[in-house]
């Protein structure tokens, strides 16, 4: 009996440092942030509680609202773009093309780059004086315009393009792995049934990629919420607040505007929005897992 207790203590002991780190660093930081968001801290934390004043200020800030709106636009287009283009790339490589591994490497390569590098590359590409627009105009199509970043309405789409360029490769790799797991006899059966290739991908292959799709969507969603360096490198939030995003708003208020209270309130808002989005999914999947296990 004593021996068994000792045995069960061992893994606990091994996990203790990690647990301490989780509790102190993650949860501790979260609680600390939550506390600061109710104070009027400026450059240093204070103990002067002001209730929800920082939140009221936040919600009446046009910059924050613009950032939140941009996050939604960017998030939807970025995830949809990555999924669609990644799936198309995977389907293209799945057709047993030559030099498949070479193409796979090329398509995945952008994902290996930091957002800052991606941002800089696309800033140059979309620069009207030296990028794509200048090249195409030099070839003779003088009316060609590819100048997203200087327009208030279009700049966010420029950021989306850069983001999709980087993220689609990851989707492709995950989808391709999923496609390779599909029994080849299903393809042969579909050919006998006379189902066109595109239809087989949509109706037979895609529904079987559920787990891969869920995994890659989670990764992309986390990327969206963290989006900071990409925007800083391409547009630095501009023109105006056209590409402002919440993470950048938080960083600006933390380190440049010396407004800890507002920054932490914004961080808490961001966390809440993540919870609101993620919680239902987690709930559904845990319910499904329980039902599978026969508990319900």
């Amino acid at each position, binding site marked *: 009996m004593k021996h068994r207790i000792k045995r069960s203590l061992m893994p606990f002991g091994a996990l203790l440092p990690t647990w301490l780190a989780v509790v102190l660093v993650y949860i501790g930081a979260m609680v600390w942030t939550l506390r600061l968001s109710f104070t009027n801290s400026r450059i240093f934390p204070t103990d002067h509680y002001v209730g929800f004043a920082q939140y009221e200020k936040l919600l009446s800030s046009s910059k924050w609202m613009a950032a939140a709106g941009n996050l939604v636009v960017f998030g939807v287009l970025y995830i949809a773009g990555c999924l669609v283009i990644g799936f198309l790339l995977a389907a293209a490589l799945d057709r047993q093309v030559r030099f498949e591994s070479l193409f796979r490497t090329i398509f995945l390569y952008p994902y290996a780059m930091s957002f800052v590098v991606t941002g800089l590359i696309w800033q140059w590409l979309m620069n009207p004086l030296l990028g794509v627009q200048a090249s195409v105009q030099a070839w003779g199509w003088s009316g060609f315009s590819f100048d997203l970043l200087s327009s208030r309405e279009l700049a966010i789409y420029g950021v989306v393009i850069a983001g999709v360029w980087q993220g689609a490769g990851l989707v492709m790799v995950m989808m391709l792995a999923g496609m390779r797991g599909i029994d080849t*006899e299903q393809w*042969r*059966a579909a*050919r*006998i*049934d*006379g189902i066109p290739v595109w239809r087989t991908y949509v*109706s037979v292959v895609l529904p*079987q990629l559920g787990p891969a799709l869920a995994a890659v969507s989670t990764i992309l969603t986390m990327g969206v919420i963290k989006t900071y360096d990409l925007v800083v490198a391409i547009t630095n939030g501009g023109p105006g607040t056209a590409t402002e995003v919440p993470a950048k708003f938080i960083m600006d208020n933390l380190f440049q505007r010396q407004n800890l209270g507002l920054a932490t309130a914004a961080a808490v808002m961001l966390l809440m929005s993540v919870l609101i989005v993620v919680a239902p999914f987690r709930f559904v999947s845990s319910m499904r897992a329980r039902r599978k296990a026969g508990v319900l």
Partner: protein
Amino acid sequence: MQSAVSVKDLKIAYGSTVVLQNINLEIAPREFLVLLGASGCGKSTLLNAIAGLTDIADGEVWIEGRNVTWAEPKDRGIGMVFQSYALYPRMSVRKNLGFGLRVAGLPKAEIAARANRAAEMLHLTPLLDRRPAELSGGQRQRVAIGRALVRQVDVFLFDEPLSNLDAKLRNELRVEIKKLHQDLGNTMIYVTHDQVEAMTLADRIAIMKDGVIQQLAAPAEIYHRPANLFVAGFIGAPAMNFIEGQIVARGAGHAFVAGGLDLDLAGYQGAPLPGPATLGFRPEHLMPEAGGGPAIEGTVSVVEPMGADTVVWFSHEGQSHSLRLMGDTGLRPRDPLRAGIDITRANLFGADGTRL
């Protein structure tokens, strides 16, 4: 009469590796043809070529009087059943049955009617709204057969459809396939490595080895008069017994001589020629306690009672042979045995392996 399926001078090669060459097959309407062989003999490749799933290097495939060599699989008038069932996993049984028809643009009522009829024939009606994952292996394979059925085609192709099932289900479904063939009267081409399936289902069996059809004949013919040593050894369990020896001319006829065995070949069904030869005889064609006739003598080594019959293994001049007896036997290991050979049912193979 026009053939339902005919394969003419078919050649299939992957790069420079020739898998099949000079394959000719004429399959009559309503015939059940089984392609039988060990794995890698080219039988599945041949089936895929008929289905249009494999590119062929040379030759032609005709189905129902049409040259379909270059036609898409869906335009060949075939239905196919696969070893892994190949059902669409995220669709219900009903959708699996109807998907091809829906894509082909058939009216909804027609699709539903066909799916219901197929489900009824295959006893799938209560399962129509289930997903493949919620079905047993046998049920899944019935759905796969149903998917071929709703296409209302004349030719069914089966690619080892029972290999993924356990022995009991395999037997059940085998009988169902045979019944289905009797009810529908379709032409069926069936690939298997299981000789029991081949023997029980086939009107004719094509035994293949290394991309060559060794013998194409009715099961009884293949069993009793195998065209060569390979076929003789492949069909039958336990396998046919072989004794190597010489055929010598004796008087007006011939005799087979091997060690102490001397067999007069007067009753042999075939044309023996003098020279080296192999004598083959099936375990059930040996008669223990033979009277004065030709017989081989040996010592019992193992007795395998199987219920309905018993297989007795004995050694004769250093070689192991088997003998099948109906019911039980009093023989025990190390008992002496004298087994008579029925020359009218024996087979002789020449030096090149073909039957004499």
